[in-house]
């Protein structure tokens, strides 16, 4: 199976001592076996696909400690626990004997490492099971050989292999060397565990692997890297995206105690992709001195092409565009005729502003560039992309770049973009020492790859009986593609597929349009991306139609979804993007959508009596090929102050691995949803971001959070392909909240954030 070189190397180290990392061992080309799934996923279309080689992911020490590689980035989803847990369960390792080791950026070796798109479990469940089953098979074969008995007479269980006839046992540590000498079994011959025998998968009994370190301050995030001789840097970046330095005077900065150097940082022309914005860096002996030094810099800026970006004017542009026809991106039937024949047309215009990711750990990275090589320690969601970008920026080969992935103090899509790492690399090269670049909160708020801003306009035509016969949805928003290609003005298929063209409603005439929108700042992925505005618009519109026709909102929703069926939108949409998945495995299933609505309605006691001033709202949305419905109970007092007595959310994410972390993701999504609904807004004036810090970019705090959040996970067997859990909780929250506000107060929220809109209610 492996050539002798790999075999020999692996005998020395792969399945042995942990002082040697598994990462060092395969210095030769990796003989990766691609994942063979029981169902197909889009994994193999991702760069470098998946790898299911046990020798890459598992090593066993003589003391029995099993080290499992985590190749995906941990930003709070629990992936560093959940994926290794799959391997451990399948190989019959005892979890308390498992160590998890983070892989550096190396996709050829580990498979795709882009930790985004809520993809980790759905793409890696099967490969991780195969890795575990391969390791178990090799341990069993090694024991059978040692005892000279047929392999059919031995069985691995609880970290040892047992000879069934004699009751003899050998621990995994005792078998480590011999197991390493076994050939890796052909994936087609692997026996996966019967799900009824799972010890960890599906149970939710295991704490996250970093729990002890987090609670004692020992967990290592990007900000926590310390290297001998390291310098601390902060950078004054252009106040307007796309601007540049004309001149600067460092003299006052250099007088600040602790400041050592002031250096200009290269910027790239707009649009700059993930390249640094440029500016002037202050290098100091500690971060505090660097910040104080930066405050003393005098810089003359050229504001560049985006200096007139103004959110008030831009909103009007978007709304005007939404009132005129745009590029048709989905068409069923004849919407124009149906609208003309409609007894009633209801129009909803919705607006959702830019948002900042505002992870608690701001962008931060440490780099050491010397002798034609670069090594970085950084909290990145895409370590291989970071590695490639560093190589390009420095003009060296990716083989000379090492990206060590730390824990991420939150990511939400921001840390998929490596501009902050490239800054550290450039500065380390210039200074000739290791450099940590620290972004302050103001830097983060001012220079984010912001969530898009959008106008969503929906017209619904109803016949005399109140049935919706026509639906036109225009979505206008600057595209993420504008960050990569100058002049991109239309949403890309991956944005259109997030809640616009994938509308799962049973309406004979549907048209979705995407008028043009230009971008004047860096637009990027934010947790759940375009699903935020689309779910808000669609689910608010459903409530508006229900109200206009005197119907119960949940009944209206179920009527619009229609009967359980597979919604085939393929012929009506060009380049339909189903979260990168094959539609055969992950169709739009109206039955599953109905069932989460019914589940949340039952468990969340939809229709229950609530006190005066309270209201219930519901919303459902399919995203990241999962189905989620939320009911929010809100209370609004006479001054417009919101409290949230209860939230219920039902999620169908297919077969699942770690329900405890699914629950935590959905609990957290309610808080993030509350933040964006109540406060979330990044605005621009004269090209500059108006907000600065958490005083004016507010986030929900504990005393505003729901009193009770109940999560109801749809029980699914192993035959239902796994789907996303990190992002899908977010989109339905804001519309459910605002629908509840309408029920409580009669005030319809069509524009986010809610801000002061309720103070006049």
């Amino acid at each position, binding site marked *: 199976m492996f050539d002798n070189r790999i075999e020999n190397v692996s005998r020395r180290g792969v399945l042995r001592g942990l002082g040697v990392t598994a990462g060092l061992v395969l210095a030769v080309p990796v003989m990766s076996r691609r994942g063979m799934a029981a169902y197909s996923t889009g994994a193999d279309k991702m760069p470098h696909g998946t790898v299911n080689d046990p020798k890459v992911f598992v090593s066993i020490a003589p003391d029995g400690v099993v080290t499992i590689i985590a190749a995906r980035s941990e930003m709070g989803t629990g992936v560093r626990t959940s994926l290794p847990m799959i391997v451990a369960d399948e190989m019959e390792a005892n979890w308390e004997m498992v160590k998890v080791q983070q892989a550096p950026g190396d996709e050829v070796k580990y498979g795709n490492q882009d930790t985004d798109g809520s993809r980790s479990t759905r793409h890696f469940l099967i490969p991780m099971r195969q890795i575990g089953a391969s390791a178990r098979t090799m341990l069993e074969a090694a024991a059978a050989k040692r005892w000279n008995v047929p392999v059919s007479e031995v069985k691995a269980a609880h970290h040892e292999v047992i000879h069934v006839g004699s009751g003899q046992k050998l621990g995994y540590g005792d078998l480590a060397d011999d197991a390493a000498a076994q050939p890796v079994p052909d994936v087609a011959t692997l026996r996966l565990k019967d799900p009824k025998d799972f010890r960890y998968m599906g149970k939710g009994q295991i704490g996250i692997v970093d729990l002890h370190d987090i*609670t004692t301050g020992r967990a*290592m995030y990007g900000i926590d890297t310390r290297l001998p001789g390291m310098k601390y840097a902060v950078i004054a970046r252009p106040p307007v995206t796309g601007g540049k330095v004309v001149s600067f005077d460092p003299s006052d900065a250099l007088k600040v105690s602790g400041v050592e150097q002031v250096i200009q940082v290269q910027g790239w022309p707009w649009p700059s992709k993930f390249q640094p914005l440029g500016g002037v860096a202050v290098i100091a002996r500690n971060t505090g001195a660097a*910040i104080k030094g930066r405050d003393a810099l005098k810089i003359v800026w050229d504001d560049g092409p985006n200096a007139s970006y103004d959110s008030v004017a831009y909103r009007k542009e978007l709304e005007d565009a939404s009132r005129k026809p745009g590029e048709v991106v989905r068409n069923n039937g004849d919407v124009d005729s149906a609208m003309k024949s409609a007894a009633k047309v209801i129009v909803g215009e919705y607006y959702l502003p830019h948002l900042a990711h505002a992870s608690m*750990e701001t962008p931060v990275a440490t780099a050491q560039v010397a002798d034609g090589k670069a090594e970085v320690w950084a909290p990145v969601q895409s370590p291989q992309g970071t590695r490639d970008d560093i190589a390009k920026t420095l003009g060296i080969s990716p083989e000379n770049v090492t990206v060590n992935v730390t824990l991420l103090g939150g990511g939400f899509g921001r840390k998929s973009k490596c501009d902050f790492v490239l800054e550290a690399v450039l500065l380390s090269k210039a200074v000739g020492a290791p450099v940590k670049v620290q972004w302050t909160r103001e830097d983060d708020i001012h220079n984010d790859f912001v969530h898009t801003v959008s106008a969503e306009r929906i017209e619904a035509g109803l016949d005399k009986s109140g049935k919706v016969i026509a639906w036109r949805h225009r979505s206008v928003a600057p595209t993420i593609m504008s960050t990569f290609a100058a002049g991109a003005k239309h949403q890309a298929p991956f944005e259109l597929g997030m809640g616009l063209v994938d509308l799962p409603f049973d309406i004979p005439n549907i048209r979705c349009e995407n008028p043009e929108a230009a971008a004047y700042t860096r637009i990027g992925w934010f947790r759940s991306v375009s699903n935020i505005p689309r779910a808000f618009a669609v689910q608010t519109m459903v409530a508006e139609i229900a109200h206009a026709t005197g119907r119960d909102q949940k009944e209206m929703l179920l009527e619009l979804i229609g009967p359980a069926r597979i919604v085939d939108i393929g012929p009506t949409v060009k380049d339909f993007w189903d979260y990168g998945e094959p539609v055969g495995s992950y169709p739009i299933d109206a039955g599953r959508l109905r069932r989460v609505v019914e589940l949340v309605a039952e468990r969340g006691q939809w229709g229950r009596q609530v006190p005066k001033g309270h209201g219930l709202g519901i919303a459902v949305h399919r995203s990241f090929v999962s189905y989620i419905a939320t009911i929010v109970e809100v209370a609004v007092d006479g001054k417009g102050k919101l409290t949230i007595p209860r939230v219920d959310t039902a999620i169908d994410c297919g077969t699942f691995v770690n329900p405890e972390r699914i629950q*935590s993701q959905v*609990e957290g999504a309610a808080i993030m949803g509350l933040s964006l609904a109540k406060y979330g807004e990044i605005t621009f004036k004269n090209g500059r971001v108006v907000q600065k810090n*958490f005083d004016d970019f507010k986030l929900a705090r504990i*005393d505003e959070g729901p009193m009770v*959040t109940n999560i109801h996970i749809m029980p699914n067997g192993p035959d239902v392909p796994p789907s996303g859990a990190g992002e899908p909780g977010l989109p339905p929250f804001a519309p459910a909240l605002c629908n509840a506000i309408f029920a409580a107060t009669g005030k319809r929220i069509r524009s986010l954030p809610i801000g002061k809109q309720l103070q006049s209610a």
Partner: protein
Amino acid sequence: MITLVVNGREQHWDGDPSLPLLWFIRDEMGLTGTKFGCGHGFCGSCTVHLEGIAVRSCSTTLAEAAGKRITTIEGLDPAGNHPVQKAWREVNVPQCGYCQSGQIMQASSLIARNPHPSHEEIREAMAGNICRCGCYQRIETAVHLATTGA
């Protein structure tokens, strides 16, 4: 020369007295458990104890910390088994975990002054600490658990 005591050990600083305590602890001493979040006391990520009371180290200068006893997350309990830390693990509170040092220091300060806080008192005392992942429900549960014998 400024002298202060951090986790029971005397420390000296002859640099800028306006340096925030946060950066002294992190960059000069190398105790990285205390986190930077906002730099202005809005988020609580940098919370430490000054004479036993929770303060924001990003907004406390070394001049203000002079002569004082400071405790960071590393010094809260020698084995990391303060009732709040144990409760945090019992409830599996963290998601990304970044803000949790500050949350734990805030909660332990609360409990030291008020051993049996009500839910409202917990919410009020913890409202200065932002968690972007949204672990609030579990934080509240864990603080309550810590006061009832985790």
